[in-house]
């Protein structure tokens, strides 16, 4: 299968005093078309930073990001879902969803359709005219997802989108995300702290270690998705990734 995201010897550094604080270096990560990849790792390893470089919000220090998304003026190649929903409080729900549509070449009628379609997709049809403050945390995050889907991106980057939600809302949204992914065939790179979530959602789980940050391991999850919540195979897989993460953390503490 074709790779839709491929980073090549990617490094990110932030200016600090006279020099640079290097967050990671020689990082090679790829996502295939239509694949759902989850990324877990030692905290501080730069998971969110990686998403931001791929989204072109931060420039790479070394290396490059290759995206294989055909240029299409009616879409954006990439959209991002953030940890806190980060809706603009002064825009109604419908206007928040169309944030990314404002600058692209689609007629107003199509924009309206996209807003309605994505609202339906996230189960909030008819919410266009509400203000963000009138929504619950879970609803806000759904709008954050709808905002990303509205630009019809080939790639969806998700930065711990369910991290701030309660367990029940989170489980519901995980299943909804899987359904949306299966309906829309997006390629997803999903960062999370929660290993069960990573194993539940991903086709492949990447484990990021630090000092320097690198992919310690990757796990192909060969368990049927409808079997995942309770099957023994699923639980074994979760344990395996957990063990891998603990080992990576021990290594990180040892060398640091």
């Amino acid at each position, binding site marked *: 299968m074709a790779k839709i995201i491929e980073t090549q010897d990617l490094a990110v550094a932030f200016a600090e005093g006279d020099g640079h604080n290097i967050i990671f270096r020689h990082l090679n990560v790829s996502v295939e078309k239509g694949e759902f990849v989850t990324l877990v790792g030692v905290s501080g390893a730069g998971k969110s930073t990686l998403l931001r470089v791929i989204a072109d*919000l931060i420039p790479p220090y070394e290396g490059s990001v290759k995206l294989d998304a055909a240029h299409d003026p009616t879409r954006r190649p990439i*959209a991002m879902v953030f940890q*806190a929903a980060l809706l603009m409080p002064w825009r109604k729900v419908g206007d928040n969803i169309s944030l990314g549509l404002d600058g692209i070449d689609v007629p107003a009628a199509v924009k309206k359709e996209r807003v309605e379609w994505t609202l339906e997709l996230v189960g909030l049809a008819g919410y266009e005219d509400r203000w963000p403050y009138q929504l619950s945390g879970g609803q806000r995050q759904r709008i954050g997802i709808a905002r990303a889907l509205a630009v019809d991106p080939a790639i969806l980057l998700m930065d711990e989108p369910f991290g701030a939600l309660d367990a029940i809302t989170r489980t519901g949204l995980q299943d909804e995300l899987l359904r949306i992914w299966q309906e829309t065939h997006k390629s997803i790179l999903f960062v999370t702290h929660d290993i069960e979530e990573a194993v539940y959602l991903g086709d492949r789980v990447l484990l990021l270690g630090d000092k320097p940050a690198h992919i310690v391991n990757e796990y192909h999850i060969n368990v049927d998705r409808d079997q995942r919540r309770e099957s023994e195979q699923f639980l074994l897989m979760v344990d395996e990734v957990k063990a891998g993460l603990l080992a990576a953390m021990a290594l990180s503490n040892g060398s640091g």
Partner: protein
Amino acid sequence: MKSSTRYFLSAVGLVGFLLIWEGIARSGLFATYLLPPPSTIPAALISEIREGIWQVMVVASLRHYSVGFVLGSVLGVGLGVMVALFPRIEAGQAWLARVLRPIPPLAWIPFAIIWFGITETAAAFIISIGIFWINYFTAMGAVQAVDKDLIEVARAFGHRSFPALLRKVILPGAAPGILSGLRAGLGQGWMTVVAAELFGIQGIGQRMIEASGLLASNVVILYMFSIALLYGVSDYVFVLVQKRILAWQR
């Protein structure tokens, strides 16, 4: 507390104050020019209106006030926003603002007269100074406090140019702060308007000095209440507009 109870008690407070004042004024303890009873004020109002003085003075004051308000607000908000957006300008203004800000608007009166003479421009200039500083600092703070994460969101969704970020995130995000600065300036303006007129520019302040020279204290009080009324009305209208603009807030 029920809101009807609240209204009732507020009315009791105001009416009680007027009654006590009336009682003391009529007790003969003080000469009426020292403390005129409030019951003489409506008559003063009627006679001032009949002679056409009240309208002229109020309109004149409103004129300097509006010019000063618009001037001070536009410059204050404009420069405050700019300073907040560019760290180099921010650094450049830091000491300058610290030197100029503590100078009270009324300390500018001599220069206002030297520069503009005894004119409406001089009064508007003095009024604009206090309003300028309030708006300058609140607009600066409001822009600096805009959520950086929302700027990143806007960038992630394709709004990367500076004007786009200004329009989509920075100004709407700073709007609550900017509006509260404008509202504070609205009050500050009325405080300086009278003082700015004391040196002879036509308006409420000038009429008050004139009336006090004639020991017509009830006329002085009439204009004191006129200012309170004008301030009350302008603030009320402002809050209505503000609520409309900030309908997105809880």
